């Protein structure tokens, strides 16, 4: 393969994984914006999406669309239950307590997945066949096109929801100022629940569309969650354009790093990028630095 073809290949696969990171990043951003909590369990919802659809497909023999629907519903229900049981009761929790609880939640979900489905990796069939397509010298699978298409739809859906629907605007109001939002009649607790529901739905969708490409197992959540977080940080925790750019950037850098430098250290490259961003520009590439009230 010529160098230009190689580069095109890295670029395309990087964009593909980057789109996934962006979707996961949305999940982090939406919950953070409504509640100021970083949900460490976000990666586990991604894992649940993939694992549950594999279960419904191969064990219960559901047709693909039903399996996907079932997976998204169950993952979303899990997110809602998690919010109700673990997050809502803690009104006066300190930062530290919330972090520990969400870590505990992520471990719990991962442990249950391991008990239910074992430690093996599972493969999931692609949505529309395995015929590779040729694009500027690089090969992509139809699944990559599905990823781009679905991600685009979700981005547009997000924009419409948060900018043009009452519930979306209410959630943005909670992000600005919780007290003021409740003063104008917004049920903040309901908005918090919604944010978890939307995040877990988005996360599970991301897990479902990537599973045919990368196989899925009970512990993919940690890595995907961290990289999605990285995408969200680069984008400044925005639930829109910034996170998308962050995800794509991360995906491309990781892909080029793996291809040109070393594939064993691929994950390390992503985390080094995370550390560099956190050290140099923690507010992300697109936001101005915020000041904190003491």
């Amino acid at each position, binding site marked *: 393969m010529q160098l230009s073809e190689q580069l095109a290949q890295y670029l395309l696969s990087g964009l593909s994984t980057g789109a996934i990171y962006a979707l996961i990043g949305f999940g982090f951003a939406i919950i953070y914006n409504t509640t100021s909590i970083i949900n460490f369990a976000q990666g586990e919802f991604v894992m649940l999406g993939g694992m549950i659809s594999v279960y419904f497909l191969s064990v219960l023999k559901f047709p693909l669309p039903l399996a996907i629907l079932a997976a998204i519903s169950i993952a979303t229900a899990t997110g809602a239950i998690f919010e109700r049981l673990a997050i809502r009761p803690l009104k006066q929790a300190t930062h530290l307590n919330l972090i520990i609880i969400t870590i505990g939640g992520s471990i*719990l979900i991962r442990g*249950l997945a391991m008990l239910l489905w074992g430690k093996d990796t599972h493969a999931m069939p692609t949505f529309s066949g395995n015929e590779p397509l040729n694009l500027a010298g690089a090969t992509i699978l139809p699944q990559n096109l599905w990823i781009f298409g679905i991600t685009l739809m979700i981005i547009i859906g997000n924009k419409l929801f948060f900018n043009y629907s009452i519930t979306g605007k209410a959630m943005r109001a909670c992000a600005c100022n919780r007290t003021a939002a409740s003063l104008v009649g917004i049920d903040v607790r309901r908005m918090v629940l919604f944010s978890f529901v939307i995040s877990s739905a988005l996360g599970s969708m991301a897990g479902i569309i990537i599973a045919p490409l990368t196989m899925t197992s009970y512990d993919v959540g940690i890595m995907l969650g961290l990289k999605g977080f990285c995408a969200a940080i680069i984008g400044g925790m925005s639930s829109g354009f910034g996170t998308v750019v962050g995800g794509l950037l991360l995906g491309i850098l990781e892909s080029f790093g793996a291809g040109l430098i070393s594939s064993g250290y691929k994950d390390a490259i992503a*985390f080094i990028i995370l550390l560099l961003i956190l050290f140099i520009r923690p507010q992300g590439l697109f936001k101005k630095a915020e000041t904190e009230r003491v």
Partner: protein
Amino acid sequence: MLNKLLGFIVKRELLKFLIFAAILLLIPFFFEGGYLLNILLFVGIHTMLAIGLNLLLGFAGQISLGHAAFFGLGAYLSGILTATYSINPWLAMFMAAVVVGIMAFVIGFPILKLKGHYLAMATLGLGIIIYIAFNEAVDLTGGPSGLSGIPNLSLGHFIFDSDLKNYYLIWTFTLVTMLLSINLAHSRIGRALRAIHDSEVAARVMGVNARLLKVQIFSLSAVISAIAGSLYAHTMTFISPASFGFNFSVELLTMVVIGGLGSIYGSFLGAALLTLLPEMLRAFQDYDIVIYGLLLILMTMFMPGGLVRCFSAFVVAAISPKKPEGGKGSA
């Protein structure tokens, strides 16, 4: 007046510690079982690690999700220096501690500018990077298959090659660490750390050099973990990256949270519980992750002070005089 009070507190703390140390040093005489001794040996290592993390997390309030990495660095540095380069194990331990300390000091400055979630994620990322390095640098570390042939520690002709001898070796180190940490907690630095935990800005206003102190305690915590790692390497004579990943960092965090943030004896309690529990639940081995997750959630929700505070609150409630019934309470 204040001096007498301080003297009383210091003497009581010292007494508490001496009783604790005596019990621990005498345990092998009462329990002949080799298996139990082996477990208690690991309780010692885990206590040391938990204390290191507690200094950072419980006192200074800085969360670290990557502490297993420092443990691993100490173990691998010691292991490589002794197994591959045949350096004296004590010298290797010292060198490993110094290197890890310097590393933590240098990376501490940028990383501790972060707070809360960002610090958690950054330390998590750091831990994973180091874990990947353990796995990938196969020439140095042996990669996933691990590093073997690490010699035992020895003093002259006395080789620490049995569980009993290693028990005393490890617990000597752990008890010294405990003593030093208790001393630190009751000192000006300990108070400064707690001030930083409460409100960093207020502490700085009062003249505490928060930035430097946070990095120093991060460094100290890393050095303690590294020494524990060296001891682990020389006791096991074989190490592999699997013991130093994210899962172990979470275990350490659980130990500290369960025992009680900011309580040195709590770290011992948490370490003991989380080392003994998997052994007792051998039959339920695969459930350990689920149990850790549940424990973390339930403890944080219902007993945020940890077991130690729960015990002492319980004891205080049990022995305090009950108020008289009815309205005629005076005299």
